[in-house]
């Protein structure tokens, strides 16, 4: 028997005016047919707004169909007498880890579900222990959820569902707000549940590499299922997926592009190992045997490196043209030996800074990477004076920003900082007014303010028709661009962005990153991008700074830093997938196109 079966499921959202007349009807789901067998690992893909989350809420009977039927374990979700059985059997994990934990202690939160089901006290304890064990969080049972990392919180949320003994778990973008380590943790947990406890898993995501091991993938667009099949079948359609605003793993893309060059590695390649085998079969060449003269010697990966022993290694290589050019550029920000220690006992004890020096030149594209708690957020808040270092100095255009006569508002005008999830700081009634907030604070005249705001909105790709809209009716990606425009309107020389693409789908992500690149090249604004995504960093940044444990570990041209991918792994980071693919060739490859160029 199939555990979930939807027949022509339709869900409409209606927009009403003040008198409750329906003005507009949108179908979030438009005739969805999905069938899931017990014990399967199912992935549902789709860009933001494709209807995948709405579908998830139907499975849990949080929403009921307007048309069509949905059966969960044989029960019709419209049958109210079965409501609690349906919710118990189809547990749900949501995107935001903070907004689904109810209790202040981990074990009590896990017990919340069983309590609601009326499970006897003794058994609740038993279930809680088992559930926490199954997600590997038993040792944290007495902790406060606020002290846990994002990945750990999501595992607690999963345990909370497991404790209800469901047949099926629906996870609605559980990794969207997590860093790469958290993502791995959650995914591993989910896979184990599926394999060991035979729980049916429905994973909703837009990270393609999370669905490779799924039994079946459904791709949704505009409320419809547009593709279904095994991951291999789905990833064959690279072009189509891209049209839907989705991505494919880098190896798959390389293989796809090679096909266009006449090297056919078969329909679909999903892993590095598979790629290498097929490449050898087809061309008779090993990737390791590819002879790349230009740089094979310079970055010999096998060479025992002394990097780990040295605390800070500057990789600036004087004989590289790029770098010597860099040196002629004007130095804007020069931070020297910054040290910042959080007050003991506060939740933020991690993330301190220890003797960090960093400089930012005019018009460069710099990326800062590091895992959560590495100090990168603390560092960027120093750069515009929101935090003050315990020791060390920062020079802005040669002036000491800690000097008494130095004006912080002046610094903040020139060094713009966009926080993570910046859309949370929007507050005005219209988009235009919100963007005006920054320039207004600078004391510009009314015309100048409007001018600056309009220019900034244009630069993030939002035209006149957005001016009078409320920021709150926009899509997630649009809101974020409004927020970025809000900082941009102050006309900064340096624009620092803390994970500007977090939670966006691939299309929204590319849009923002492309616009940043444009700002850099056209307006000569220095961009400092804090990111978790190595693929993005490799594609856009020129220079890369790696933070770990409050220290600067590497600082140099992207390619050089990525050539140390083994060391990066040790601190919980990684290089782009293509770098691994091509590692044996002796060249540090950063983008899909480069790889294709070599392999061709």
């Amino acid at each position, binding site marked *: 028997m199939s555990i979930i079966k939807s027949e022509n499921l339709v869900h409409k959202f209606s927009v009403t005016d003040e008198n409750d007349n329906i003005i507009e009807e949108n179908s979030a789901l438009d005739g969805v047919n999905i069938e899931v067998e017990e014990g399967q690992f199912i992935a549902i893909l789709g860009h933001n707004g494709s209807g995948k989350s709405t579908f998830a809420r139907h499975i849990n009977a949080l929403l009921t169909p307007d048309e069509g039927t949905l059966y969960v374990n044989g029960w019709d979700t419209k049958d109210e007498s079965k409501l609690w059985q349906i919710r118990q059997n189809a547990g*749900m994990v949501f995107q935001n880890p903070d907004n689904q934990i*109810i209790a*202040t202690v981990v074990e009590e939160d896990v017990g919340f*579900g069983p309590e*609601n089901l009326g499970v006897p006290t003794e058994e609740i304890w038993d279930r809680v222990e088992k559930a926490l064990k199954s997600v590997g969080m038993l040792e944290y049972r007495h902790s406060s959820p606020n002290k846990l990392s994002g990945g750990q919180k999501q595992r607690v949320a999963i345990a909370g569902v497991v404790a209800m003994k469901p047949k099926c778990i629906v996870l609605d973008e559980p990794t969207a707000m997590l860093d790469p380590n958290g993502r791995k943790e959650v995914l591993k947990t989910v896979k184990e549940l599926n394999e060991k406890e035979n729980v049916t898993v429905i994973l909703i995501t837009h990270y393609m590499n999370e669905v490779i091991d799924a039994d079946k993938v459904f791709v949704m667009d505009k409320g419809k299922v547009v593709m279904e099949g095994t991951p291999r079948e789905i990833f064959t359609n690279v072009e189509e997926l891209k049209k839907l605003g989705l991505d494919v793993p880098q190896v798959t893309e390389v293989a796809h592009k090679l096909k266009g060059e006449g090297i056919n590695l078969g329909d679909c390649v999903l892993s590095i190992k598979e790629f290498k085998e097929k490449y050898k079969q087809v061309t008779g060449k090993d990737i390791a045997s590819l002879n790349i003269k230009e740089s094979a010697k310079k970055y010999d990966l096998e060479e025992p490196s002394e990097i780990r022993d040295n605390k800070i290694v500057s990789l600036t290589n004087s004989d590289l043209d790029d770098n010597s050019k860099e040196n002629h550029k004007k130095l804007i920000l020069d931070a020297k030996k910054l040290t910042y220690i959080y007050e003991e006992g506060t939740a933020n004890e991690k993330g301190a800074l220890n003797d960090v020096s960093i400089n930012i030149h005019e018009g460069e594209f710099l990326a800062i990477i590091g895992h959560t708690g590495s100090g990168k957020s603390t560092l960027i808040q120093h750069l515009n004076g929101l935090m003050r270092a315990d020791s060390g100095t920062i020079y802005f255009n040669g002036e000491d920003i800690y000097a008494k006569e130095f004006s912080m*508002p002046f610094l903040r005008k020139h060094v713009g900082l*966009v*926080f993570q999830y910046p859309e949370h*700081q929007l507050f005005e009634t219209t988009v235009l007014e919100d963007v005006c907030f920054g320039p207004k604070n600078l004391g510009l005249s009314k015309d100048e303010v409007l001018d600056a705001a309009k220019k900034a909105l244009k630069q993030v790709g939002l035209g006149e028709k957005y001016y009078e809209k409320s920021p709150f009716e926009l899509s997630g990606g649009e809101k974020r661009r409004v927020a970025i425009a809000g900082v941009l309107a102050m006309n900064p020389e340096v624009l620092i962005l803390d994970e500007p693409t977090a939670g966006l789908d691939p299309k929204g992500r590319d849009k923002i990153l492309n616009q940043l690149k444009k700002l850099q090249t056209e307006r000569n604004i220095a961009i400092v991008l804090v990111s978790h995504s190595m693929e993005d960093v490799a594609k856009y940044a020129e220079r890369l700074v790696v933070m770990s444990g409050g220290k600067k570990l590497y600082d140099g041209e992207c390619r050089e830093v990525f050539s140390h991918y083994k060391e990066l792994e040790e601190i919980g980071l990684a290089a782009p997938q293509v770098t691994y693919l091509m590692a044996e060739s002796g060249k540090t490859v950063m983008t899909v196109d480069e790889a294709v160029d070599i392999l061709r």
Partner: protein
Amino acid sequence: MIRDITIGQYYQVDSIIHRLDPRVKLLATLIYVVSLFVTNSPVGYAIAILFLVGCIALSKVPAKYVLKGLKSLVYILIFSATFILLFTGGEHIVFKYGIIKISREGIYNAIEMVVRLTLLLIGSSVMTLTTKPTDMADGLEKAFGFLKVIKVPVHEMAMMISIAFRFIPILVEETDKIMKAQIARGADFESGGLIKKAKGLIPLLVPLIISSIKRALDLATAMEARCYNGGEGRTKMKPLKYKKCDFVAYGVQVGYFVMIIVTNIVVKLVIKNVM
């Protein structure tokens, strides 16, 4: 700055006070508050202070941490003290300048008020520091359970309180973040007059309210998804049960209160006799 508020925060450590039944601690807090308002003599306050110091010592919460919570409330204390100081009339004028008169009674009253408020704040924060919000909500639910008869939604209110506590640190962090984000956009929360300051709060409050509503909706959905259906038919993972130490604590409380009353009477008698 904003992180310094420790009121309502739970301090995790294992102590006899932490292990007490929340109902015991609720009553103790109530008794303590009442005792502060009953007391009328320095001796009484001395006993109250000793009792509190004893509780803090037993609770193993560092005194520094307990006092930190006061820091954010210093202004309220100063404000009320000044108010009383200036507006208490009396015969013994100690200081006079224009219309400002400070009497000896005013000074006594102000000192008494500060002591009372301080003890009250510390007393109640000892309660929150040693009791998990969920336990406290449980305690309240049980203690006021009799109100269910007259259709007071006791369970729902207890649930609301415990959730509110869970979100305090999250909202504090969020406030901090939004504040910084707006400062980065040139907002100024510090300078200017009262009206300008109040206006300046809009960029902080609007996002905060919006995100709180969003969180509330998310949380409600998550609770529903986990079969939450009000108090009916719910079991408890940690049902409240009195232990021996709870009865002892009840005894201590009553003892304390009797002592305060006796001190009061004695002090009154002594004063009468002296007069």
